[in-house]
Structures are given as structure tokens and as C-alpha cells.
């Protein structure tokens, strides 16, 4: 059947002039999408004098790293990276553990009222952070956790676990029962069955969650900005966003700050690319 169909449409597998036009316009669009990245990189390594005389599009006359160094020292960028890393890493691990425990009870244990519990998690996941922000700010002050990384870790562990529970419960709902029954007959308790059997078998989904939680927490802005006012505790997006909001930077420090914000995000993307594209679609369909 395919042979005559193909014969009837000789162009089916070969790009004609129209095909090249489609490709060209898609490439032009891709270049337009990437242009801001290129311009940021180009000008982050350009001296202010060079910028003002030659503009943003020419390659730098000579590589100039002073803007990046100045900005790095000014915001203590190494510390900001460390803060982001500690917060995102802790949240990813803790939220995955909670998601696994919840999903074990909901997906495999099928506890009573699990529909309603799932609804609560789903609503928690969609609530705007603005509707929690002031009480969280107030409570954090009351218990002495204001302006600490611990406060942000606790809060985002809850928020990410809400999504993780939702996703993982439906995955574990389809977990093969025979394996669990066999384990039970072998004398494995529920706790051991979870860690020795369920977790290893669900590792692909769990690793997607781990990476997602890390990156999502890294990217958060609103609540970390409210809770972390001290220079010692701020994350990368908070430090950059607040500085930009104050509009107190000159041209090359500004592009240097943009570059320093872009690099970790793009690095994560390149490292985790496969897991991410797999995960984006898993998350969407479940």
C-alpha cells in the first residue's frame, strides 16, 4: 500500500523548493530565539568603552572579563551558587522521599479516601504562592527561621512533594501486584518492600522527579525573595532579580549578570537534556 501512495506523491520524502522555504523560516525563527543569548554572551566579555563606541553587535575588540569579575565579587556569586545548590539539592531529595512515601500509601496501599487526598495535593499544587506568602513570612519570623535557607527548604519540600505525589501515585497505581505479593510471602515487611522493591523498580520516574524538583526550586523567585533578604542566604535568581529591579547596573555588569544567570541553567539543560525532554512529556500526560 505504501509503494503506490509514495509513487503518487514523488515529493513525499524529498525536500522541494517549498520544503526549503519551510526549513529556512524555521531556522530564521530559531536564530531569533537564540539571538538574546548570543548578544548577552558577546557583550558580557566586552569593555564598556568598546560597547559605547561599537555597539552590541560587533565582536569584542579584545576579551574583557572585568565586568564578570566585578559582578561576581560584588554579589559574592560563588556564595549565591552554593546557596542555590544547597536549597535545590535538599528540596529535591526531601520532596522525592515524601512523594515516594505518599505515593506508596496512595498508589499501592490504596488507603481510603485517596481520591480526596489527591484532590488536596492537586489544589495545593495550583494555589498561587501569593496566597501563602504573607503568613509564611510572618510564621517564619515567629519561629526564628526568617532569612534562613531552612525556611525555603521546608516550604519548597511541601510544594514540590504535592506535585510529586500526584505524578508518582498514578505511576505506582500500575505497579505489578505479583511482585509485591511474592515479596510478602518471602517475609519482607512493607517498609522493606518499599525500599528494596518499589523504589528500585520505579527508579526512572524517581530520577525524573529528582531532577525536576532541583531545577524548579533553582528557578523559584517569589517566595525565596520574600524570605531571603540577607546577602548571605540569597539564591542566584533572587540576587540577580533584585539587583535588576533596582536598576543600578551599568551596561557591561548588567550583561555579565545575565550571563552568570544563564550559565548554570543552560548547564543543567545540557546535562539533563534527555531526562528533561522525557520528563516534560511524562509530567504533561499524567
Amino acid at each position, binding site marked *: 500500500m505504501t509503494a503506490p*501512495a509514495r509513487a503518487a506523491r514523488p515529493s513525499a520524502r524529498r525536500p522541494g523548493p517549498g*520544503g526549503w522555504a*519551510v526549513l529556512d523560516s*524555521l531556522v530564521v*525563527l*530559531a536564530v531569533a*530565539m*537564540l539571538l538574546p543569548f548570543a548578544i*548577552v554572551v558577546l557583550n558580557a566579555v566586552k569593555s564598556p568603552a568598546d*560597547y*559605547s563606541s561599537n*555597539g*552590541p*553587535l560587533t565582536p569584542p575588540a579584545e576579551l574583557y572579563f572585568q565586568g564578570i569579575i566585578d559582578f561576581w565579587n560584588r554579589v559574592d556569586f560563588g556564595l549565591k551558587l552554593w546557596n542555590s545548590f544547597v536549597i535545590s539539592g535538599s528540596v529535591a531529595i526531601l520532596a522525592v522521599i515524601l512523594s515516594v*512515601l*505518599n505515593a506508596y*500509601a496512595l498508589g*499501592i*496501599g*490504596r*488507603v481510603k479516601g485517596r481520591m480526596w*487526598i489527591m484532590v488536596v495535593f*492537586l489544589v495545593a499544587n495550583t*494555589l*498561587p*504562592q*501569593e*496566597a501563602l*506568602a*504573607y503568613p509564611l513570612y510572618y510564621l517564619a519570623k515567629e519561629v526564628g527561621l526568617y532569612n534562613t535557607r531552612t525556611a525555603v527548604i521546608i*516550604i519548597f*519540600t*511541601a510544594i514540590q*512533594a*504535592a506535585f510529586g505525589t500526584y505524578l508518582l501515585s498514578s505511576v505506582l497505581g500500575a505497579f505489578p501486584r505479583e511482585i509485591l*505479593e511474592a515479596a*510478602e510471602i518471602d*517475609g519482607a*515487611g*512493607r517498609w522493606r518492600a518499599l525500599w528494596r522493591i518499589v523504589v528500585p523498580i520505579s527508579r526512572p520516574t524517581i530520577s525524573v522527579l529528582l531532577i525536576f524538583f532541583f531545577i524548579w526550586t533553582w*528557578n*523559584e523567585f*517569589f517566595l525565596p*525573595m520574600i524570605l531571603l533578604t540577607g546577602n548571605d542566604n540569597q539564591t542566584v*535568581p533572587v540576587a*540577580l*532579580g533584585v539587583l*535588576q*529591579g533596582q*536598576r543600578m547596573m551599568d*551596561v557591561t555588569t548588567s550583561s555579565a549578570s*545575565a550571563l552568570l*544567570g544563564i550559565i548554570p*541553567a543552560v548547564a543543567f*539543560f545540557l546535562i539533563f537534556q534527555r531526562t528533561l*525532554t522525557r520528563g*516534560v*512529556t511524562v509530567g*504533561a*500526560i499524567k
Partner: protein
Amino acid sequence: MAVQAPATRPAAVRRAGRTPRRRGGYRLYLLPSAILFLLVIVVPFLMNVGTSFTRWSGVGTPRWIGLDNYVRLFGDAVFWASFRNNILLIVAMAIVPTIIGLIIAVALFDYIGKRFGARPASLLRAAYYLPQVLPVAVAGVVWGWMLHPSYGALNQILESVGLGALAQNWLGDPDLALATVMAVMVWFQIGYPIVIFMAGLQRVDPALYEAAEIDGASWWRRFWHITIPQIRQEIFVVLLTCTIAALKVFGPIFVLTGGGPGRATMVPSYFSYVNFFERADVGYGSAIATVLAIIIVVVTVFFLRFQDRSEGEAR
């Protein structure tokens, strides 16, 4: 570990697995999250609803004023302006990316992927997706720099190609600021629907297209009658998640415009932030946040209902 009893009497395992007593054991696994949720989400949300009925500066005792904040809200021109802006941001963050994303995804999958191979298609997809990996605040920093009125790259580029007359104060002109923010958000969002839709297209049975092609259906008819219905679920998910994201949008507004100039780019989330932390009008801010939360939950329920119904019809 208190629940190993069934394992010692395997004969009873199967039936025991369905008794409520055994299920009760699983509840313990929910306990840590239950406590955390109570403290981090349930209690703060109820506190927020509670303070929305009070006048409170954040210190001292809140004073009960009933529904006054909500009455004030409905007469507040800034609140309505923030809503209008938010609807325009839904257009920029959900509707436009979905439409453009569909066209690009189909072009990549159907055309580039089949005629030029999988590699160019996935490279192009990665290029479109790249802005999505940025923290939204960093995307704001990038564009805040690009669009700066005096030294920003965009105006400089326009001048260097002889279009200096088109240079604008992109974020500082009240007539332009929202359109500029919308354009930035389209740039930021577009990769997400493309990735989701391309994954969806891979699921569609090629036999459907082959049959339609033999029947002489035009490209447009195949797109409308096969592609769209087949990836309907993905379209719903993208519209829902992007609409919610647009309703919550805060970072780009904070970084790019601070809601201004005037109230040109004010959105509800930023308006509540201003009342919480700049005007110390916590009760009013809480009322705005509560209304926003209700709208988001209603939109979510509406979408999910609609999706259920259309799935039912399809069957």
C-alpha cells in the same frame, strides 16, 4: 514494621490485603507529609483568608472589618486594570504559544522530520526550548538589559541598521510596556508547547494520515481533522498549565517593570505583593491573593471538567 503479621500466615495474605485494618497501616506513610502540609500550606492559606477580613499593617492586632476589603477591591480601578493586564498575559503566555507551538510542532514533525531527518528537527526544537530553561527572573534580567532605554542592545541595534526612529523606551512608555512584556513572555513560553506537542504527535497512528492522504484530504484538512483531535489531551494540558502560570506571573513583572509605568503592567500577584510589603496593607493584599487563588482553582476545575466531558464525547 509493625505490619509484618500477614507475612507469617501466607494463606491469609490475599484476603487480608483487602481488609481496612491492613490499609490503615499505610496511612502512617502519609503522616510526615500531612504534618508538613498542615504547617506550610493549609494553615498559611487559612491565615491568609482570615486576614483578608481584617485591617492589619503586619504588626499589632488585626482589626476585624468583615467584607470591607472585598468591597473596596471591587471598586478599585487598579485591581480591575491588573485583571485586564492579566487576561492579556494569558493571551501572550497561553493562547499565542499554543497556536504558534502547534504550527511549529507540526512543521517540525511532519515536514522537517520527514524530509530533512530527525536531527535538524530536534536541533530546532532545542533552540526553541532554550529560553524555557532559564529561571524566569534571569529571563527578566536578560530582557531588562536588552530593552534598557539608554544603553539597551535593542535600541542600539535599531540605530546601527538605520532604524533609529523605531527606538523606543520599551518598558518605560505606558502605551508600550505591556505589549513589550507580552512579547518577552511569548519568547519565554514558546518552547514548552512545541516539546509537548511533538511528543504527542509521535503517538498518533501514521495509518490515520495515510488513509486520509489516499482519500485526497488536503494538508489543512488532515491538520484540522486528525492532528488536532489526536493531540487534544496535550493541547488541554498546555492551555491549563500556561493559563495558571499566567495568572501567577510575578517574576517578570518584578524584574522588568515593577507594575509600571503607572499601573500599565500591574498584575494581581504583584498588586498583592505591593500591598503586603510596600504599603503594609496586609488585609487588602490578602483579599487580592484570596481572589486570585479562587480564580485559579475555578479555572483548573473548569478545564478538568471540560476535558472530562470532551473525552466522554470522543468515546
